[in-house]
């Protein structure tokens, strides 16, 4: 009976080694502290009405960023633990982690950083910026947006549950079979991995479709495709990739789960299963995933470089062509992740050459950014420092990448720490630096004041120096023949000094992270000093998001502007039409309709979590019940015909006039 109720879940699942117990206790204390604070300040109703049930893309975007920040902390702790283990575990010293615990940590680190940090940062910025940049009042499907967010959160929650109940996968972040099959990984770890990716992946796919429709259908009148801001173009490329790639992930994970749950043989070692098929499929998703992450960052750099060089982006058409070619090419290179699998020289050479071709549009983008600075007026604000850091590291990492795209060279470099150093260079400098730049750049749009520049620069230098120290040695270790994922190595290899340097580098990066927290804290405290006196346009911006006031009204644009230039807001300012005068079409206010809040998204996420948990622990009765609950709440939502509320034109006008008055007062 107990087995029927709880499946494979027993008390044993809660027992861990002291390190994991400590992490659980920390999570518990922080969780209880947050709940206590919300209760103490009587904020439950505010939290529920304004945030948890909100369908406003701005609120959802901020919640994405909060989840990403929390998970960045967790992924960072994972990284420090790995660096500490590898700095210690040489020769007779086996470090402080068991092999299995170490394997769980690097598996979790990869999943965390890619899916629970980079992805929500990107979706957070999509939510916060895309509707504003295209002149829309919300995304195409605000309710689906909430469902996507809460599906993603259910994946994150299931992932974190593995730290407390049971254990996580120790089969690597992509869980290659046959290692991830039941025969070699009998515990619940791989099932947690499957379901946390599955839930978050469905959320990502829904979100991608939502933003695709938003960009295609909801642009302001006059904003043709070739007048879209560069960030929107890059986002569109990433979104197209998501729409094509994520179903592959869903299907692949589904097959692996059927192998494990229902005794099937898609990827098992015997009975006709083919693990090589899995490796192909997972990289058919996994390689586009890399560009899903990096394209939005490219878009951010385009905005940042243009704004801070006080010049139009150079070679817009080239940039669009480069973005489109990267989007298409990224589906034709997946095999370069496993040249060592034994494909023929023809196949390997083809994929190697396709990979190198991607360097061409990427190079074009870099030249276009440089020529945006050329004959510009470059202001060295922190987003630009992150851009320079990106150029320095990304070009080096790109060189390493092209080197590994040569199959004959890759036979040596594959799976070595050179590879680890390469993809960290690309993802940290290309994705994380870009998102940091975007965060600082767009922060005042939502906060109403700019972030502290001085602490921001310190944080940047810690990240840059820390990065070189942490990953420079890994390039050399790769050349020395050090492979990845080693929890211990013989002393005679001579790896230890370099691992110690890498650990020091990781600590410096961590200091950079602490400085970033300090930057935000200090900026909040001294916000009066850095207040955005333009009430919405602190950097003298060029695109539509700088046109709406700060704090951004719930309806974004009181009047949807008509666009006839790539830099519509810049043009309005140049022509003296902003701030708008009496009689301007920008002050012809109308009633605005916006989506009502709804708890259904949160409920769907909660049911998704329960379903995932039941699937992990084989609680058979709970699986159909939670799945049907999702269908039931969605049907209930479908019967709700009053999904919008009206803001009267008079109220819009009052809000807008107040803002104009504030702007005039501060500009005098």
């Amino acid at each position, binding site marked *: 009976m107990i087995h029927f109720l709880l499946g494979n879940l027993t008390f044993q699942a809660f027992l861990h080694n002291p390190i994991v117990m400590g992490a659980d206790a920390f999570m518990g204390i922080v969780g209880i502290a947050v709940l206590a604070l919300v209760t103490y300040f009587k904020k439950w109703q505010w939290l529920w009405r304004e945030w948890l049930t909100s369908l406003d893309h701005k609120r959802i975007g901020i919640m994405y960023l909060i989840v990403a920040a929390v998970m960045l902390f967790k992924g960072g702790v994972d990284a420090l633990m790995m660096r500490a283990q590898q700095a210690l575990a040489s020769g007779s010293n086996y470090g402080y982690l068991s092999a299995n615990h170490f394997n769980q940590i690097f598996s979790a680190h990869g999943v965390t950083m890619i899916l629970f940090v980079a992805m929500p940062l990107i979706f957070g910025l999509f939510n916060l910026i895309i509707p504003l940049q295209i002149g829309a009042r919300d995304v195409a499907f605000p309710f689906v947006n909430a469902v996507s967010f809460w599906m993603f959160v259910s994946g994150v929650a299931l992932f974190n549950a593995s730290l407390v109940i049971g254990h996580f996968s120790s089969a690597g972040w992509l869980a290659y079979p046959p290692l991830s099959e039941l025969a070699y990984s009998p515990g619940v770890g791989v099932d947690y991995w499957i379901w946390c990716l599955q839930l978050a992946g469905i959320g990502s796919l829904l979100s991608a479709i939502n933003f695709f429709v938003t960009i295609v259908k909801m642009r302001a009148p006059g904003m043709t495709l070739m007048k879209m801001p560069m960030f929107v173009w890059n986002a569109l490329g990433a979104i197209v990739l998501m729409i094509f790639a994520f179903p592959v992930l869903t299907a692949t994970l589904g097959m692996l789960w059927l192998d494990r749950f229902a005794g099937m043989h898609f990827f098992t070692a015997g009975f006709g299963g083919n693990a090589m098929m899995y490796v192909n499929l997972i990289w058919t998703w996994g390689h586009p995933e890399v560009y899903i992450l990096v394209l939005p960052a490219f878009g951010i750099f385009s905005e940042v470089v243009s704004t801070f060089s006080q010049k139009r982006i150079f070679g817009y058409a080239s940039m669009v062509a480069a973005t489109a070619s990267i989007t298409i090419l990224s589906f034709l290179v997946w095999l370069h992740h496993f040249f060592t699998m034994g494909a023929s020289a023809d196949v390997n050479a083809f994929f190697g050459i396709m990979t190198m071709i991607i360097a061409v549009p990427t190079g074009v983008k870099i030249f276009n950014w440089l020529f945006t600075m050329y004959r510009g007026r470059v202001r060295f604000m922190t987003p630009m420092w992150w851009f320079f850091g990106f150029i320095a590291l990304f070009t080096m990492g790109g060189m390493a990448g092209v080197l590994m795209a040569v199959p004959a060279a890759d036979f040596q470099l594959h*799976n070595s720490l050179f590879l680890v150093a390469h993809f960290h260079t690309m993802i940290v400098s290309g994705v994380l630096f870009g998102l940091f730049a975007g965060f600082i750049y767009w922060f005042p749009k939502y906060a109403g004041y700019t972030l502290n520049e001085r602490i921001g620069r310190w944080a940047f230098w810690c990240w840059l120096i820390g990065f070189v120290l942490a990953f420079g040695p890994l390039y050399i270790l790769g050349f020395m023949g050090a492979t990845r994922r080693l929890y211990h190595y013989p002393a005679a290899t001579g790896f230890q000094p370099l691992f110690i340097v890498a650990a020091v580098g990781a600590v410096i990066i961590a200091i950079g992270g602490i400085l970033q927290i300090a930057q935000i804290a200090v900026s909040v405290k001294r916000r009066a000093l850095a207040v955005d006196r333009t009430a919405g346009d602190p950097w003298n911006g060029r695109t539509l998001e700088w046109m709406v006031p700060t704090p951004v009204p719930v309806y974004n644009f009181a009047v949807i502007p008509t666009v006839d230039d790539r830099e519509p807001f810049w043009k309005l300012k140049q022509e003296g039409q902003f701030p708008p005068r009496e009689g301007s079409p920008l002050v012809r206010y109308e009633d605005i309709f916006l989506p009502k809040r709804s708890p259904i998204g949160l409920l769907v996420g909660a049911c998704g979590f329960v379903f995932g948990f039941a699937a992990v622990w084989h609680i058979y009765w709970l699986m159909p019940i939670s799945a049907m609950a999702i269908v039931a709440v969605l049907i209930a939502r479908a019967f709700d015909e009053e999904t919008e509320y009206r803001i009267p034109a008079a109220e819009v006008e009052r809000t807008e006039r107040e803002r104009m008055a504030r702007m005039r007062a501060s500009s005098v």
Partner: protein
Amino acid sequence: MYFIVLGLVAAAAAAVVVFASTHTVAMFDPKGTIGLEERNLMIVAALLMLVVVIPVFVMTFVFAWRYRADNEKAEYTPTWDHDIRYELAWWAFPIAIIIVLAVITWQSSHALSPYRPIAGSVPPVPVDVVALDWKWLFIYPQQGIATVNMLKLPVDTPIAFHITADAPMNSFWIPSLGGQIYAMPGMSTQLHLMASATGTYEGLSANLSGNGFASMHFPAEVVSRAAFAAWAQGVRNATGTYGALTLPAYEALSTPSARYPETLYASIDPSLYGWIVMKYMSPNASTTTTTIPMSTMAIPRAL
């Protein structure tokens, strides 16, 4: 501030140079013909890419400095946003380099394909490699002997490795000699290498295979051809000292264990390697090797 930064970077660079000169960097000091060509290929490719990367670095510094906002003397053209000549130049320039690299890639992919037998002055020595949980089994079909967690190879002799796994996927790699290839259950992959100098080099698995993965190291000892022949003869004759790699012995060996000691076998069951590959094709078949005659069996090639 900037001097501190520069000083730190210089100190780090110096430390790297000192370290690299006192430690062996396997890939830059290859001891095999394939490894040597792979290293040269990396250097050529890296130099070719520097043709683009160095101008990018110089331009970044120069443009950022020259067009800084407080440099009023610099030209400022805020609406200059395209020039077809410039844009064509930086589409064409990387394309030219990629064309050169593509030719190199096509040729080297074929010339250095792991499946391509190496022409040598002597016939190749075959070695069958089996990745187990968590140790390496090396079968010498010509010599009729086998070893665990140690590999002995003759110098200047092409070695034809056939590689499989009776475990999760691994990757067979001796960085000093040349590139790696995956070891997969139910598959037989190939790798051809030739050592050009005697010595003992580090061999390892380069693909995560579970908890004992870190202990999948083995010494690859390259000796003269005569010494190799004498060693093989010695092992074959020492039937009293070393056991026989029969199917029961193999099944005992293949149970999961880490940090397994180096072991020698004076004789082998010649159909064992084929049986290990084929057992995944019919996992319910009898566990005796005789039910699947090797002669009727083609070993499937990966992909």
